[in-house]
């Protein structure tokens, strides 16, 4: 039997497959399957920790290579060398051989050591340069201190020699011999000094600490270095100060040294002799020059090396990432030591089995191995994962559904009708031809520039819109249509056809209109309703009924899928116990309401000169006083009261059926099966004394079947499949479940129908808002005349257009989209969606690279 084609209507048919792979080609096989991306491997070593698995060594090695590559990348970022984009390569997805991987690992190892040694020497040189620069500043600034201080040595001396000297003497008669004494050294006076640099923010603390510890016995001088010093380790700019401290006595100098070092100051030696100092400065300058040229050379070499790496870094990263994924997958396999075989289990779409087999054959042939890779289909009771093959058009719509819940395997996929209903319900709320056109054009632009946009980095909001570009396209198309129906384009009318209304009065101006005989406006709303006094009265009534009718149609449509589901899963009780009573209940109340709305429209009430009955009151009376009408003289149709009583009875009868039929049927079926001697798996009731020992043995084994030994991988796997996923029959649970379902269904019929009124509310709000916007901007501009009028129109037009795009299209569009989303998730999907499936997560290099893109 050929498997049926996979469509979006149901999830793809899946099979559990077992692969027996020769150990030698395990890596190649998995890598080929990763390119295919159709197999969801099950973890057969779930109870082994990550460290105990077979290929942990390889993964560690690749982790190391990956770390090295990331190191290159960060180095390139620091040197601002761009990486060659992955998209510039023709085919980066060819799988490399094992020896190529080894080569790559060795290469990156040697490159890493080279880069890091280059970096190290660069950093050392840089540090040296900073030190020299600081020293130069100290020499320069300290020189100034010395020159100033020297001028005062004499006074210092004098003041120290005779304490009783008058304080004001030096003011009155400046010392004459200062020049002569200038060369006299400080050391003569036993005054020592410390010079260095310190970060500027620490200078205040530094001063305070020095002052306190030395009790003021110091003379400190400092000045700011005008240029910022770059810290080679952190690459940050630090502004620093040069300081020089004079103090008396060796111990004190040592203390000052200690304090300044502990505060992070760098001390430099400065000679007090100005001649020597000049030499020092000279020397520092030459050394700085030498260093600069060496630094430049190192930097050039480093950059050249990094540029060479940058050319091929992207494919390397891709290769390593893939390789790591391959080994992580191989770790899920069980290894048969005796036969040197790897055993894998995977879910795969049945339709892809042929492709898988031929791929494996290719790998085998390439390796020249005589032992073939065996693909086995395994029968199992496990529920397969849900998989839909989507394309770029359907992907976003399917994502809407998947965001709510994973669809059960082979259940009807609500994603298929969502392609139309989601944008359509959006458009009912967003109906405006102009705004629809803007959406449509924006979506077209995004689709046209799909490739460049998908490769560039987008911000979060825009990337979300870009992801849903085909949804936006459909929304735009349907909004244009509903805009035509509502006869709105940027809140202005669209007179496509002659109106069905003529203004009354002698000069044809109104105030009231009369109908053109026997003519109804053929497409959409009549444009004559625009700007009339009572257009809201008409459009509210119309849109309210429109939303009820569309809601009824949408819910009936969704309810029908539960029938299709029950047919497919062969559970007729769901048809008789859920679908049919539910459908009758819903139709006899809300189907009748929909019918009444249409019927009331079809009758020409003016012609038969009768007051039309109010439908809302009719529905209320139908429940409160069955059999009577609000106005018995003017029924909607003949025999209305009787029909309503019958409908109400039908709805009421359906409630107990909905409530009891399914649980009692299930109980009857269960009891019948038990009476015939069937038992559930794992039910521990002793049937005979002979089984006694076996039971005991099983209980010892944790209630599971014996596991078999580790050597026998096959046995272990098949045992594992049977376990789990068997539920015991519990009547009370089913009953409670059904009670909840019934109450929910009946109440939801009311609340969900009311919920569709949001279609009316939002479309009304959208229309009013666009009218207000037009009146507040363009209308005012049009009323001006002359040159001011021209300028005003231009300015106001831009204002109006920007507000239209951002408020009416983006903001209102988002809100309409969210409401449409809710109508799908809650109102429609609650009617049929089961959604307890597992998502299919195939091992695929493509998704792997999409999830963690290499930029």
């Amino acid at each position, binding site marked *: 039997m050929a498997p049926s084609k996979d*469509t*979006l209507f149901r999830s793809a048919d899946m099979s559990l497959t077992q692969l027996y792979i020769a150990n030698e080609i395990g890596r190649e096989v998995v890598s080929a399957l990763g390119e295919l991306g159709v197999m969801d491997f099950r973890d057969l070593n779930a109870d082994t920790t990550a460290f105990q698995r077979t290929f942990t060594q390889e993964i560690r090695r690749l982790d190391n290579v990956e770390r090295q590559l990331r190191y290159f990348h960060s180095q390139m970022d620091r040197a601002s060398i761009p990486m060659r984009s992955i998209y510039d390569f023709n085919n980066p997805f060819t799988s490399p051989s094992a020896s190529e991987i080894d080569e790559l690992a060795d290469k990156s190892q040697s490159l890493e050591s080279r880069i890091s040694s280059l970096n190290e020497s660069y950093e050392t040189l840089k540090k040296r340069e900073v030190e020299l620069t600081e020293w130069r500043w100290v020499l320069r600034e300290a020189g100034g201190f010395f020159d100033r201080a020297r001028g005062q040595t004499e006074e210092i001396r004098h003041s120290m020699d005779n304490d009783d000297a008058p304080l004001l003497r030096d003011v009155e008669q400046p010392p004459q011999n200062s020049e002569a004494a200038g060369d006299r050294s400080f050391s003569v006076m036993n005054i020592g000094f410390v010079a260095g640099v310190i970060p500027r923010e620490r200078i205040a603390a530094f001063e305070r600490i020095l002052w306190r510890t030395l009790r003021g016995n110091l003379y400190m001088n400092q000045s700011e270095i005008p240029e910022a010093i770059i810290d080679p380790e952190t690459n940050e700019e630090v502004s620093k100060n040069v300081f020089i401290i004079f103090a008396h006595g060796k111990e004190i100098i040592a203390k000052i040294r200690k304090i300044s070092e502990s505060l992070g100051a760098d001390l430099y030696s400065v000679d007090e002799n100005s001649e020597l100092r000049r030499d020092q400065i000279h020397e520092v300058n030459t050394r700085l020059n030498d260093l600069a040229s060496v630094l430049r050379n190192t930097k050039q070499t480093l950059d050249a090396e990094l540029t060479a790496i940058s050319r091929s870094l992207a494919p390397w990263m891709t290769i390593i990432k893939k390789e790591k994924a391959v080994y992580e997958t191989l770790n899920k396999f069980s290894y048969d030591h005796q036969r040197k075989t790897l055993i894998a289990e995977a879910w795969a779409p049945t339709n892809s089995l042929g492709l898988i087999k031929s791929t494996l054959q290719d790998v085998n042939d390439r390796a020249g191995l005589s032992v073939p890779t065996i693909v086995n289909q395994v029968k199992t009771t496990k529920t397969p994962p849900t998989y839909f*093959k989507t394309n770029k058009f359907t992907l976003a719509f399917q994502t809407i559904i998947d965001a709510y819940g994973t669809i059960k395997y082979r259940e009807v996929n609500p994603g*298929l009708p969502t392609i139309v209903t989601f944008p359509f319900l959006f458009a009912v709320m967003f109906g405006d031809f102009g705004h629809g056109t803007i959406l449509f054009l924006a979506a077209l632009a995004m689709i046209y520039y799909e490739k460049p946009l998908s490769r560039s980095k987008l911000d979060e909001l825009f990337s979300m819109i870009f992801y849903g570009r085909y949804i936006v396209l459909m929304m735009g198309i349907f909004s244009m249509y509903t805009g035509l129906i509502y006869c709105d384009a940027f809140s202005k009318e669209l007179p496509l056809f002659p109106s069905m209304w003529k203004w009354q009065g002698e000069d044809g101006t109104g105030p009231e*209109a009369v109908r053109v005989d026997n003519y109804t*406006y*053929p497409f959409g709303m009549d444009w004559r309703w625009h700007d009339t006094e009572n257009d809201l009265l008409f459009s509210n009534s119309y849109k309210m009924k429109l939303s009820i009718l*569309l809601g009824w149609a949408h819910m009936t449509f969704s309810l029908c899928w539960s029938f299709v589901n029950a047919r497919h899963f062969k559970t007729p009780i769901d048809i008789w116990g859920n679908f049919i009573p539910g459908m009758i209940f819903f139709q006899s109340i809300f189907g009748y309401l929909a019918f009444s709305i249409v019927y009331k429209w079809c009758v020409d009430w003016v012609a038969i000169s009768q007051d039309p009955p109010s439908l809302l009151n009719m529905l209320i009376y139908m429940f409160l006083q069955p059999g009577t009408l609000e106005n018995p003289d003017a029924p909607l149709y003949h025999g209305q009261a009787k029909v309503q009583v019958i409908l109400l009875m039908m709805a009421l009868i359906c409630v107990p059926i909905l409530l009891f039929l399914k649980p009692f049927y299930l109980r009857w079926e269960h009891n019948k099966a038990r009476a015939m001697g069937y038992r559930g798996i794992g039910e521990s009731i002793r049937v005979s004394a002979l089984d006694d020992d076996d039971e005991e043995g099983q209980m010892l084994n944790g209630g599971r079947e014996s596991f078999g030994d580790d050597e026998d991988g096959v046995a272990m796997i098949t045992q594992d499949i049977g376990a789990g996923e068997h539920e015991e029959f519990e009547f009370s649970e089913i009953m409670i479940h059904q009670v909840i379902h019934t109450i929910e269904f009946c109440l939801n019929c009311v609340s969900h129908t009311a919920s569709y009124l949001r279609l009316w509310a939002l479309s009304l709000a959208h229309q009013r808002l666009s009218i207000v916007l037009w009146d507040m901007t363009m209308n005012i501009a049009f009323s001006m005349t002359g040159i001011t009028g021209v300028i005003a129109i231009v300015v106001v037009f831009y204002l109006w257009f920007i507000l239209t795009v951002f408020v009416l299209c983006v903001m209102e569009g988002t809100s309409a989209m969210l409401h449409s989303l809710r109508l799908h998730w809650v109102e429609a999907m609650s009617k049929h969606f089961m959604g307890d499936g597992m998502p299919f997560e195939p091992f695929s290099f493509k998704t792997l690279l999409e999830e963690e893109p290499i930029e």
Partner: protein
Amino acid sequence: MANGWSLIIGLAFIVIFCIVSWFAAPKGENQTVWRSTLILSAVACFLMWAITFLAQWHPLIVPRRLDLRPEHEPSRRF
């Protein structure tokens, strides 16, 4: 020109459109998507049009103007 028959004609047109799109949908793995999208779109658009048409078929109120000069406006409510 446009009267009750329009509804029937419109319905017939949509039914024909649906039948045509069922058979003319491009073959291949996207056939289901084509079919469901075309048919559902047609039905949804028809529903919208038909409801709007029905609402105006036998209208119970007539448009009243708001923008007339005061001497033509017998009952200004402002």
